[in-house]
Every structure is written in C-alpha cells, then in structure tokens.
C-alpha cells in the first residue's frame, strides 16, 4: 500500500496539471509574443549595448514582438546560413553580409523581396550606389544598412613630415613614402597579402585603380589584363616595406600594425579613429587619412562592402522582419548604431549624413574632415557585383570572391614568385572557369 500511494497522488497531480494547462492555453496563446531572430556580425560590447537599446524601443512600439540577437562571424556566415536553409530554421532578418554574398543568395533565389522596406525608408534618401547595388531584376533584394570603404590610406602626419613628404596620391608616391618611412622597427606601410577577404577586397580595387576590371560589362573575364599586371607589379614593389608577416595579414593584423604605431601607413575603413583613441591615444593627433593612391594613368576608385540587411526566403516572420528593418533606419536608432564605431560605420542615407546629430560625438567632431571625406568616397564606391554602371548584376561575384582567386594572384607573385603576367593569366583562367561553372 505504502508503495502505491505516491503513484496515485502523482496521477492526480498529472491530471490536474493537464486540465489546468488545457484551460489556460488560450490565455497563454494570447500573451505569447513572436520572437524575431536577428543575425548580425556586429557583437562588440558597445554594439550589443546599442542593439539592445534599439530593440527595446522596437519592442515597446511593437509589443507583439521580441527580438533575439544571434551573432555570426564573417567566416562562419556560410556554414550557418547553409545549415539554416537545410534545416528550414532561418533567422528573420540578417545584417552585415557583404554584397557579393548577397549576390550568391540572389542567384539561388533565396531572398525575400525588400522593396517595401526600401520604399518606406525612402528610395531617394539612399545614396544611389548603396541602393542600386541591391536592385536585381527590377526589385530590391536587400538594402545597405551602413557602409564603409577600405580604399583609404591612413598615415602618420609626424612620420610623413619627418620624411619630408606629402600624403601620397599615386602608387609611385606611395612606394617612395613607404620606403622612406621604413626605419628601425617601423614599417613604411601595412598591406594584406594573405589568402584573406581583405586581400581579395583590396585586389578588386587595385585592378580598378589601374584601369581594369575583374569581369567586363559583356560578361567576359577582364582580370587577365595589363591593368592587373600593373596592380601586381605595384604590390611587388611595395611589399618589401610591409611587416614580415603581411603574407598572412587580413583586417585585424593590418589594423593592429597601424594602431600600435608599427606601420606608418595602412589601408583601412574609419575604424582606426576609435581604436587609436582607445588603445594608443598618444598618436591620435598624428593620424589622418586620404583616398587610397591610384596608378598614374589609372583612376581613383573605391570599393565597398555595402553591409546589407535582408530577409532570407523561408524566414518565419517576414512581416515582422520588415517592421524591424524599417525601425533600424529610424534616425535615433540609426545614429545610435553608427556611433558604436565612430567614423567606421557610415550612413547609407543622405538625410542621416546631413544630420547634425551624426557628428554629435567628440571623436566624430575631431575627425570631421576625415569622416566627411570618407563619406564622399564611400558614396562613390562600387563592388564586384557591379563593377561599372554598365555592368550587369554579377551573380557569380560571391563565387569569385570566395574562391580566393583574387588573393591567390597576390600570393602567386609574392610567395610563389610567379611573374605578374603569369599570375594574371592563371587568375583569369580560374575566373573564367567560375563564370562558366
């Protein structure tokens, strides 16, 4: 008997519990909120604080939703997205994926139309390049959330004046400045020569600056050209004045070498402003930036990532995702997030760029001329998905970029000691295969 008693009680408890659950289910359903899953690669503490603030306001205005932030890194976006698509377990809104990757998604018809969002924010308010980079077959497939070009040259005013030089404007002047500033434990310039996304990004722009293209507007391969050879020759000339580990450098290493004062010049977005202020304030007054020098006889060009905002096809709550997307462009939210990386995150909207609140931060004030100059460069930037206004939308841009062929051509010259002509030809063949495949 004593053994059976607890079992009887337990049955009663289960029955009572089940009844209570059944009776209360409609009330629970009424109170249940829909969770919007938001993916971002921007998870540094100030950015997380801003996201939480912004989403709290969104949840107050839209009490039917809660927002869950899920972080990814640039390197694991594909494994995460592919797993999501395979398992039909997708985020509602994805931010900060670069334009060439969005092209791959578009090529596979994996994006929800984004026209509603772009139109609600204001088509004309977007800088044209930042808006049109996501226009495919007459529809918007994503929108640029914010943007930055890395086609800038950060330099040290003190070191440059010690060398008796002005900021370089051409590749020839850049090589000369790098050579003259390489002294003791300081390297004249830092560049990414690794098989990395920064090297690929820079290579696209080097080819453009030399007057060439990766893919011609008619869809043929443009990479195997005298312009590419000139770009590789320039890298060959400037490499001796870069840190010894540059053969594996990417974003982090290039930034570190400049911020810590071990490299006199480096290409980068506006990120050094905040990082130098926080980690090496002693050189803050000495740093400045100019548009990245270009080949004499070539042209001044800028390359941008066009950090996107999109809804993957199959997302559970498209309506909620669109509401959230629109909220991210609201002035207060937008500026709050831009301020998490002063000078690095630049606005995609003209109204925000013109807003006095954008510069309502001491660092933004201090570097206002530099930031305004970077905003002009960014607005004029292009990307591998559409290298010229005449170029069709390049759905293979992501495949070209992710294959590593662009960075490989640099490594072929600097590590494998191939001639620039041979490296350009090899790269051209590989791109042709990708375009065909």
């Amino acid at each position: 008997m004593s053994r059976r008693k607890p079992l009887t009680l337990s049955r009663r408890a289960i029955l009572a519990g089940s009844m209570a659950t059944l009776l209360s289910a409609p009330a629970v359903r009424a109170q249940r909120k829909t969770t919007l899953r938001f993916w971002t690669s921007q998870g540094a503490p100030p950015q997380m604080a801003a996201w939480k603030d912004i989403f709290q306001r969104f949840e107050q205005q839209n009490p039917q939703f809660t927002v869950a932030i899920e972080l990814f890194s640039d390197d694991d976006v594909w494994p995460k997205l592919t797993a999501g698509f395979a398992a039909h377990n997708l985020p509602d809104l994805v931010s900060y994926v670069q334009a060439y990757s969005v092209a791959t998604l578009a090529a596979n018809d994996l994006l929800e139309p984004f026209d509603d969002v772009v139109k609600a924010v204001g088509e004309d308010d977007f800088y044209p390049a930042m808006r049109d980079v996501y226009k495919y077959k007459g529809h918007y497939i994503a929108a640029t959330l914010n943007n930055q070009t890395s086609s800038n040259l950060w330099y040290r005013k003190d070191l440059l004046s010690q060398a008796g030089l002005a900021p370089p404007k051409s590749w020839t002047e850049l090589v000369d400045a790098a050579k003259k500033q390489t002294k003791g434990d300081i390297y004249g310039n830092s560049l990414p020569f690794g098989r990395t996304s920064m090297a690929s990004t820079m290579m696209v722009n080097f080819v453009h600056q030399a007057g060439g293209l990766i893919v011609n507007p008619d869809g043929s391969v443009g990479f195997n050209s005298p312009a590419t050879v000139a770009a590789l020759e320039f890298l060959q000339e400037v490499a001796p004045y870069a840190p010894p580990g540059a053969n594996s450098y990417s974003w982090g290493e290039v930034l570190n070498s400049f911020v810590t004062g071990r490299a006199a010049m480096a290409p980068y977005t506006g990120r050094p402003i905040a990082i130098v202020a926080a980690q090496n304030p002693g050189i803050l007054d000495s740093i400045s930036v100019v548009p990245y020098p270009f080949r004499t006889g070539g042209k001044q060009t800028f390359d941008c990532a066009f950090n996107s905002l999109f809804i993957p096809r199959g997302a559970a709550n498209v309506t909620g995702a669109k509401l959230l997307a629109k909220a991210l462009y609201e002035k207060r939210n937008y500026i709050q997030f831009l301020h998490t990386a002063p000078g690095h995150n630049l606005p995609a909207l003209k109204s925000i760029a013109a807003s006095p609140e954008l510069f309502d931060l001491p660092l933004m004030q201090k570097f206002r001329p530099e930031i305004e100059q970077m905003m002009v460069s960014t607005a004029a930037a292009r990307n591998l998905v559409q290298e010229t206004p005449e170029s069709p939308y390049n759905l293979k841009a992501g495949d070209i970029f992710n294959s590593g062929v662009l960075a490989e051509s640099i490594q072929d010259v600097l590590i494998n000691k191939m001639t620039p002509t041979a490296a350009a030809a090899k790269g051209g063949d590989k791109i042709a295969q990708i375009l065909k495949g």
Partner: protein
Amino acid sequence: MSSVLLRRERAIGIALLAPTVLLFGVLILYPMLQSIWLSLHRTNTLTLRQNWAGLDNYADLFADPAFWRSFLNTLIWTGGAMSLQLVVGVGIALLLHGSLVGRALARGLVLFPYLLPTAVAVLVWRWLFNDLYGFLNSVLLRLGIIEHPLAWLSQMPDAMISVILVGTWKFFPFVVIAVLARLQAIPDALYEAARIDGASRFAMFKDITLPQLSGVLSIVVLLRAIWDFKEFDLVYLMTGGGPGIGTQTLPILVYRQAFQMLNFGRGAAVAATMCVFMLLFFAIYAWANRRLVVSDR
C-alpha cells in the same frame, strides 16, 4: 519443442543485436553512404539541389594540383606531429615514471595542453608567433640571434614547422597518459633481473620497456594518426591553410569546397577520398604491426 526454443533464442539474439545494428546504421553507415551519394552529385550547399555527376567530382579533384598538394601537406602534418608526439610523449612518460620531486604535480600539469580548448591554445600560440609583438621574435632579437623579426606563420616551411610544433604541444599528453599507465604495469622483477645480469639502462629500455610498450604504442599510433589526419581546427585557426596553400590539409579543402565554394559534392568527394586513404594506411599499418608481433614471437 527444440525448434521453438531455437526460434525463441534466435529472436532474443536478434532483439539484443538490434540496438547496436540500429545505432551503427544511423550513426555510421547512413552518414557514410550519404556522403558517398553526395560525392556523386553536383550539390549546391545552399539549396541542396542535386544533379547526377557520376565520377566527375573525383576526376576534377584528381586533376587539381591543389588536391595533391593538400594531400602531401596532410601527410607531412600527420607524420610530423605524430612522430614528435610519440617521441616527446614517451620521453616525458619515462621521466614521470621515475622518481622525481613534485611528480604528482607534474603528472597533473602535463595534461594542461590537452585540456585547453584548441581555440584558446591557438590564440596564445599565434600571439607568441606574432611577427611584430611575438614573444619568440622578441627573445631571439634580444639574444641577437636574428636581426629582423621572423614571419613564423607567413612563410614556408616555417608555417608548417610551427603548426607541427603546436600540434605536438597540444596532443602529446595523450601519449603520456597511455604510456605512463602501461609503464606502471611492467613488473619490477623484469628490471631487477636485468640489473642482476648487469644490463645497462639503455639495454633495459630497449629489451624490456620498449617491447612492453609495443602494444600500447600501436594503439596510440593508430588513434593519433586518425585524429591528426582529420585535424581541422588547429591547422585552420593557426594559418588558415596559408601561406598560399602551404599548410592547407585535406579537411581544410573539404571546408573550402563545401562552405566557401558552396560545392557540397566536391567537398564530399574529398572527404570520401580521405576515408579511402585512411583505410588504406591503416590496413598497411595493421599488416606491418601483425608481422612485427609474429616476428617478435
């Protein structure tokens, strides 16, 4: 009556075997067959849309110099890391088996690298190897051994050597644990008898310790070879396969094909080929090991 019993026994046998067979089927056989099936298709990683490719993925792979270079890199990495792990692991196990001040503490500390998450270990090592601020360069510069910092992870063969050294540091404790356990089981009487016969320390190691360790070492070699052959995270995090494809091993190639080039079929073909290579090596190893044991007898 007996046939009923027989049937019942057979049913019980099947029932007892079923969970094992089911688990084997679900966890090993199905993924393996699925992987081979994938390798025979052109499969888009994003959409999982498939087109029959037959052996095209394999043909493309074998015609690609990058595949053979990755294969060679995998052999160099596996051979280098495993050999050093054995040498260091056996050496330290012998040291810890002897009388040593603070032996208990040392036995605990020796496990540290093995317990450390790979990502953390790699972060620390990358910092030590850093070209501009690395401890190694700093020490060598101060000692006047080098005039300029070395790019440990950005030039060949330094990058491969560095990865092998870090792999050795990370995984040698496994060898230590296995060998130390076996050392403690060798009867002291054997050494006592050898000492009475006037055997030198080296002779005792060669004729007693080593033969006694052969069983455990063959298992250690087998396991470490499998684990090193398919090691991904340590190599990828240390060098990303660079400079160029100087340290790109086959698992990195699988990752690149499947998740960077979004070509699941090609990635699966590399993985299936890896599996065949491993089976081949271990068949040869098992055969050689068996011959060694027979000749010892």
